[in-house]
């Protein structure tokens, strides 16, 4: 393992992959302009994938390598070092032809993202499991059933 390898749980990326990985996460879910929502790049997505969907790691590495290779060909730098406009254009091009490209990474990213305390708070949820506190739900207006009652029986009578 070289000194610039990045360790996330038991997952590793080389430095080019890592810079591209961070760039991609920020393109999947960027921070909101008002600062309420963090960027997905602020979260340990790699460690989460290593824990929950280890087989996806190789796919992600291959996809990152492909992005870097195409970016090197077009712009002479790895994807993570390219300008924002170039990155977006390159990504849109590949995903336009292959909608599933980086799809697994995106699903795991949103899965982790929407369990994060900061995100929970931003969407108005307490950062806790449902149990034991539970939630309040309004009973609802049962007078809405008046027209249903007024219509009367709708099941079929059955003769013995």
């Amino acid at each position: 393992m070289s000194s610039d390898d990045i360790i996330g749980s038991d997952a590793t990326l080389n430095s080019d992959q890592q810079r591209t990985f961070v760039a991609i996460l920020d393109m999947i879910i960027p921070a909101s302009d008002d600062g309420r929502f963090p960027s997905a790049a602020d979260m340990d997505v790699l460690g989460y994938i290593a824990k929950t969907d280890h087989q996806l790691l190789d796919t992600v590495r291959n996809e990152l390598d492909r992005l870097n290779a195409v970016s090197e060909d077009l712009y002479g730098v790895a994807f993570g070092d390219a300008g924002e406009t170039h990155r977006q254009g390159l990504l849109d091009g590949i995903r336009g032809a292959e909608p599933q490209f980086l799809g697994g990474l995106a699903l795991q990213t949103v899965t982790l993202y929407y369990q994060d305390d900061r995100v929970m708070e931003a969407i108005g949820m307490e950062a806790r499991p449902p149990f034991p506190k539970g939630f309040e739900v309004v009973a609802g207006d049962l007078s809405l059933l008046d027209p249903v009652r007024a219509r009367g029986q709708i099941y079929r009578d059955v003769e013995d």
Partner: protein
Amino acid sequence: MTDEVVDVLIIGAGASGAAVAWSLAETKMQILCLEQGGWMDPSEYASTKRDWEVLQGTDFAISPNFRDRAADYPINDDESPIAVANFNAVGGSTILYSAHFPRMHPSDFKVRSLDGVADDWPIDYQTLEPFFAENDRNIGVSGLAGDPAYPYHEPPLPPVPLGLMGETMGRGFNKLGWHWWPSDTAIITEPYEGREQCVNLGPCNAGCAKGAKSSADITYWPIALRQGVALKTDCRVREITVDEHDMATGAIYFDADGVEHHQRAEVVIMACNGVGTPRLLLNSTSPNFPNGLANRSGLVGKNLMFHPWGHVGGVFDQPLASHFGPQGSCMLSQEFYETDPNRDFVRGYNMQITRGGGPVSTARNGVAQGKIPWGIGHHEAFDKHYDRAINLGLCCEDLPEEHNAVTLDPELTDSNGIPAPKVTYTLSENSRKMLDHGLEKGTEVMKAAGAWDIQTHAPMRMAGWHLLGTARMGKDASRSVVNEWGRSHDVRNLFIVDGSVFVTSGGVNPTTTIQAVALYIADSMKRNLENLFD
């Protein structure tokens, strides 16, 4: 190893096995139940964890093939558009059920007489009504009396909350002049029999940590055990044994250590539902029953019925707090339940209104469907979907067809080497037309309720919750497996009490009817104890 003989041996501790054990306990017979799973620990249920939405699709996935717990057995459902869902533990699939608890209708028991299809049941709604009511009281069922889609009955507890989403849908149904009603639900909404009421955790179908959902492990079993019924967990039955006089003699099973036992019994009761029961019977071959036990009719495993399931999802402008509350239970519509000769299909379906998804499932589904984009528009799009979704499930009556079947897989086995079940199923033309009709009507009511985004899908693959018909009930031994009170035509001390005995499926979630049938069969056994084997 041969175990001491018992009076009654029940195979399976789920919805029906628990109800039968409870009912027979008063006889003071020596009763033993063998269950291949163990007791669940509610503190481990999904709702106790931050990653509860993830756990719904992993540790508590509805398919045993994905879940792959030690108690599970694999099911080959490659030749079916609908995958089997179940759970193996004390309580069976009630651990994961949504507790949506509508009864079958009177007409459901008379489909041949009324509509000229399938067969009539040998029993009717009136016969089962006392047992529906008894079951409601025993486990704690909530609901609102007076539903005009049913003969009058009074659930013992008030209904689960409609919430803003229920009101929204109710107004939509009212605009169209269609029936709707708060669901009968096996969830207690007030303290009941020592259990605390529902606090709207949400993911009922990944186990109820509160104990408010009336699963069989916390309702029937504690009482049955106190009354002397014995329950052995982690015991997987391989076959039912039979003597030369065509009488069942017990069951061969493996304990948790893999040690083989022969449990002898005077009476054997099968309660493994529509896949597990035929699997065991077909695996119980002997010189007198070369094609499987109790199978002289050739119908064991045949006539498998699911409920083909359609989904209509709607997204609304206003926040609805829609992912709070019992996930699978809110309200139903039976506007299209009964046969209408003006339609191009017979029989009908139930519309089950269920709650919206939590944050993770909203994001995952939205991203996967392209409705919530990557990039700068992500947050705004998420906000437009989250907390504003309502789901509508179409539970379509599935008519029996012999080619839809459970057989034994020639190669696949469970961890004890017992052949796995194989499901072969084709969606019928009638079901396809019913689903199409339901998707159209579901879309119509979503629009009437104000949804701005509507998605439809049918049939849903991961929706084989209801497993029915594979050891059907009837008076004609050549056309059925058990008689009108659940006793095998071929083996006079073998009873079947689960969804296998259903002659037709109705168009509603079957657990309340399964438990009513089980209580009815147990009551019949008690009334016929003197001449049980005649």
